[in-house]
């Protein structure tokens, strides 16, 4: 097995559906290209140092290349430099690394994706009214980008939509449920709520359902069975999905190419998509959804 090319992917997590989809894509590429892929990430997106330790352990294994989804790109620079010195190409995935060390980046533009969610939200609530955000994290790149992408777009393009509350549920379904119920209590006139990842979005759906409030537009992020069901049932108006399988697949593909010394594209935009009741079964969308 040692003869096979070995490529570890250090992600931002592994327990969540999203990361499992990335892993699935990476595994698929690994199988197709005949390389060994491992996939690992810390428990939550604040554990920057745990991720660094994982990167260090990965380097110790003398891999052919490394895939890395930096929780904090600056913090990882010394180890990335170490990789560079050892001639181990680094592929950034999910979000970029502020450095020229990664030879390629396969990522979603979370800011733009969340802005799209804002546009959809504004459209559905008639361009005005109070809305809230249940975000999954206050400090991580993805949490911040999705929140800011949504909030800034509202401010710029939909000034009559007021963001009355932003809360953080850690992506925990239950916490996000309670948060949503509290938001609905505090702002009975709320028109819409945006949940910034799968756990948050499901929490919002649960919260709205449990409090029995009608007419709140829920927009989610990512995919998953519960989210797809909610969209089909009309509990969720729609959601943004990234292409995690594609991210994983492209990352490994680029890593293999880089390890072989072949040229790779500097940025691989894996894209994002809006999906709702109407297009959920389109082949193009169904391909990027996962559960």
């Amino acid at each position, binding site marked *: 097995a040692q003869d096979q090319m070995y490529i570890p992917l250090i992600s931002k997590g592994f327990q969540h559906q999203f990361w499992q989809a990335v892993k699935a894509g990476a595994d698929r590429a690994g199988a197709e290209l005949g390389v060994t892929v491992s996939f690992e990430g810390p428990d939550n997106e604040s554990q920057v140092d745990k991720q660094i330790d994982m990167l260090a352990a990965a380097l110790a294994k003398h891999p052919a290349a490394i895939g890395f989804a930096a929780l904090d790109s600056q913090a990882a620079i010394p180890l990335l430099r170490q990789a560079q010195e050892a001639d181990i190409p680094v592929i950034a995935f999910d979000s970029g690394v502020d450095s020229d060390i990664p030879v390629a980046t396969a990522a979603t533009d979370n800011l733009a994706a969340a802005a799209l969610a804002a546009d959809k939200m504004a459209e559905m609530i008639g361009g005005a009214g109070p809305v809230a955000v249940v975000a999954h994290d206050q400090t991580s790149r993805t949490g911040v980008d999705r929140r800011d992408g949504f909030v800034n777009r509202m401010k710029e393009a939909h000034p009559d939509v007021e963001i009355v509350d932003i809360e953080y549920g850690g992506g*925990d*379904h239950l916490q996000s*449920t*309670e948060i949503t119920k509290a938001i609905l209590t505090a702002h009975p006139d709320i028109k819409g709520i945006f949940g910034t990842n799968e756990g948050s979005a499901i929490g919002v759906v649960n919260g709205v359902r449990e409090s029995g409030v009608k007419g709140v537009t829920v927009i989610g992020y990512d995919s998953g069975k519960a989210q797809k069901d909610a969209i089909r049932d009309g509990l969720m108006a729609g959601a943004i999905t990234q292409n995690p399988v594609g991210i994983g697949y492209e990352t490994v593909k680029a890593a293999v190419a880089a390890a072989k010394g072949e040229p790779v594209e500097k940025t691989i935009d894996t894209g994002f998509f809006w999906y709702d009741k109407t297009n959920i079964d389109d082949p193009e969308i169904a391909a990027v959804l996962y*559960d």
Partner: protein
Amino acid sequence: MSATGTAQSGTTTARAARRSGAQRKLLAFASLILLVAGFSIASPNFFQLSNIMAILQAASVNGVLAVGVTLIIITGGIDLSIGTLMTFCAVMTGVVLTWGGMPLPLGIAAALATGACCGLVSGTLVAKAKIPPFIATLGMMLILKGLSLIVTGTKPIYFNDTPSFTLIAQGSLIGAVVPAFPVPNGVLVLFVVAAAVAWILGRTVLGRYTFALGSNEEAARLSGVNTDGWKIAIYALAGGIVGIGGLLIASRLNSAQPALGLGYELEAIAAVVIGGTSLSGGRGTVLGTLIGALIMAVLTNGLRVMSVAPEWQTVVTGIIIIVAVYGDQLRRGAAR
């Protein structure tokens, strides 16, 4: 003559102790009322039936976990594994109901049995292998966390095939009878569990030995009590109760989320301690734990309803936990 003197002082002390105990509980209750009153004044949206129900509902999972761990804390132990055990129980219910396609009662039994078995393991590690509870349950916490992910393949298990499953926490038996009072079943479950455990603690042999273990385990052993056996039984019982918590959360989320659970243990333990149960064992009440869980739920909900910035919510929660226990401490000091 000395006998009468003694008798008098004896009775007085007992009466004083009982009175101060009741007072203390009343005062802990007062903290709760104070919080509720404060939030009601601060936000008109707070004191509404729907929000009160939301708070009770929010307290239900943590409350059940806290009631379970109260038993263990009274023995002088601690259980860090309750959060991930809750999840593991939910997962096993999912395995039985969704994967196995079995009927609901078997799913419920699966959660309880899983909880009890894991509790049995923890209890055995503590009682027989003499591993300190902190470490035994820390190990179990990690093991169960991993097992949930392994069993599910890190994917949630949904209960869509068992539609009645969501009724466990979300339906309202009481609401069906008294529509004006739609108490969710989850809350009902919490109160039933609390009442049952209070009864066990106050009336049964198991309860007596729970206090005895926490008060002076060696003395209990020298008195011929099978301390190891009872301790294992108590951990198993607590595990079973955590299994009920697993059912509640799975029912509320209509799914078993394998990555959930870490951190729930501290919240439950906090509720227990706020409720006046001593971490050094030997004393504690279920009613106190219930009030503790409610205090935490009111606090969290109230700060959110007031739209306090999330980072300040954390700070205020920390301060209020300290202040609540400080108040309790003052009262105790005064009683002493």
